[in-house]
């Protein structure tokens, strides 16, 4: 039998046609296609698509939970006839930030740890894919999933509010700046959450460690930041007791940074905790950018060096 040739073996049950080995003469797409394939595969894996029902429950459930405040607000507004606005675009992140963290804790290990655990990396790296491509495709997949959580509920709230409004067109015209603000703040908080979650996941092949690490880091940093800010006297209490430590504690908390970032975008006053830290709004934005950059750099570095 030659390459691409065929033989037929005649068995008792009839003919079995063994077509032999077929050479592949079709198109071979390059690195960009490999990147796209890995990205789409990762995005599907993030939501458990193509996996068991069990692995869909957590990510899709969390996504649904992130939508709940928007739906409640819309329902109450529709019933009451006027917007009570306990849930607004500028405080949405402070309501669903925890959901984003949990989503990252559930999904990032799937993208950052799993291939290490099962030693699949050597199969990826022995293909037409650079190590950097792998890292970037994983980051892009998680970022897309995070963006879905950061943006979709807020757009639902924005568009829903407009539709309930007595004059939707004038509402949209009056609030024409909102989509840009949602997008800007959403991209930043999603980048921040993606960077932190995937960086932690990429450092361990163990899924449980990655999940635990993300949750622990997020809530410990958040707890410390809030605690230290809350024992700091308010800025109008006369003598300035706001030390560099307070600032540091607040900036080390990813959720306070995210909250401050969103409020800066929408130009609203900080809540009590952030008010005590008394930082300029742009500092939070800069901190969010630093979180994202450090996270991305960590992921690139880790997958650039890991043995495969």
């Amino acid at each position, binding site marked *: 039998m*030659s390459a691409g040739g065929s033989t037929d073996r005649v068995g008792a049950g009839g003919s079995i046609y063994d077509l032999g080995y077929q050479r*592949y003469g079709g*198109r071979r797409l390059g690195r960009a*296609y490999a990147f796209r394939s890995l990205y789409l595969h990762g995005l599907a894996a993030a939501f458990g698509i193509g*996996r068991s029902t069990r692995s869909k429950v957590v990510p899709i459930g969390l996504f649904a939970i992130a939508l709940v405040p928007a739906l409640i607000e819309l329902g109450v507004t529709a019933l009451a006839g006027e917007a009570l606005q306990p849930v607004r675009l500028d405080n949405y992140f402070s309501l669903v930030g925890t959901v984003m963290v949990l989503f990252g804790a559930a999904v990032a290990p799937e993208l950052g740890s799993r291939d290490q655990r099962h030693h*699949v990396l050597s199969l990826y790296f022995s293909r037409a894919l650079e190590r950097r491509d792998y890292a970037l495709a994983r980051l892009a997949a998680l970022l897309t999933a995070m963006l879905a959580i950061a943006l979709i509920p807020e757009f639902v709230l924005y568009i829903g509010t407009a539709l309930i409004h007595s004059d939707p067109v004038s509402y949209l015209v009056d609030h024409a700046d909102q989509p840009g603000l949602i997008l800007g703040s959403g991209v930043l908080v999603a980048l921040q959450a993606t960077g932190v979650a995937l960086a932690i996941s990429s450092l361990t092949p163990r899924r449980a460690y990655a999940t635990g690490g993300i949750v622990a880091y997020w809530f410990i940093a958040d707890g410390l930041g809030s605690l230290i800010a809350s024992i700091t006297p308010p800025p109008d209490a006369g003598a300035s007791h706001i030390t560099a430590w307070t600032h540091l504690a607040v900036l080390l908390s990813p959720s306070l940074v995210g909250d401050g970032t969103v409020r800066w975008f929408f130009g609203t006053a900080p809540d009590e905790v952030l008010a005590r830290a008394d930082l300029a709004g742009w500092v939070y934005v800069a901190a969010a950018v630093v979180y994202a950059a450090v996270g991305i750099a960590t992921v690139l570095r880790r997958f650039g060096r890991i043995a*495969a």
Partner: protein
Amino acid sequence: MPLIATENLTKRYPGAVALDGVTLELEGGIVGLVGANGAGKSTLIKILLGLVPATAGRAIVLGLDSATRGTELRQRVGYMPEHDCLPPDVSGTEFVAHMARISGLPADAARERAAETLRLVGLYEERYRPIGAYSTGMQQRVKLAQALVHDPSLLLLDEPTSGLDPAGREEMLTLVRRVGTDFGIAIVMASHLLGEVERVCDHLVAIDSGHLVASAPLARFTALTRLLTVEVEDGADLLARRLTDAGQVVRQEGRSVLVDLDGPAPYDLVRDAVVELGLPLVRIEQRRHQLEDLFRGDSPLVGEEARP
């Protein structure tokens, strides 16, 4: 153009030298890469793939420098690692099709080739079940299939029979042989078992502690020696003395007498001596080199090709 050419290839790890100045030229066919565990086989394969950078020297595979054109090169090479490298929670078809896409095959072709390749390596209905439920033998087949799915020009197999029972080992070797001969794909197969290499390969490369010991067609390692073995039930010492008296150079080895062969003359002398002494003759045979001689340093080829 040779399939693989290396020049003074050296790989040093902190505190260890994995490869030490290996210069090698290989044509196609099935090449066995043999050496003890830790001899440098895996390192050599990883350098050929461009997965690991060499400390010094260079490797040209399929005409491409593995250090600078690794991405291009890896598109045309298939790699089967020694270690486990399969995720347990996806099916064989899904995984192989995914790997085909990462190798640049369009989605339709990837699905088709995945099914076809899995059938060729002997996985049928099982391919829809999660890989975690496969036996070691089936997992080894999936590992081979993912290396073969994009129809590479060269297949690098690192200990393909690792972890298999004797029957599985046989099947895997038959499969490797078939891929090399029927499919016309060049193969480099690393193994620490000489017997496996002897069964499957046409050409043999032996390395020991990072040094190239020998590289030559298999037949030359088992070529005839210039020694005649005469085995008798007993009286070997008598025979040896008689032949020495007749002017032959002989050496006794248990029940055998080894006679230096410089022409046809010793045959007649041996026949006459055996008849005159009335010895029970077992066999007269021109001795062959054993593959094992390689690592005892008695092979005629040791060092011959190692020098540039």
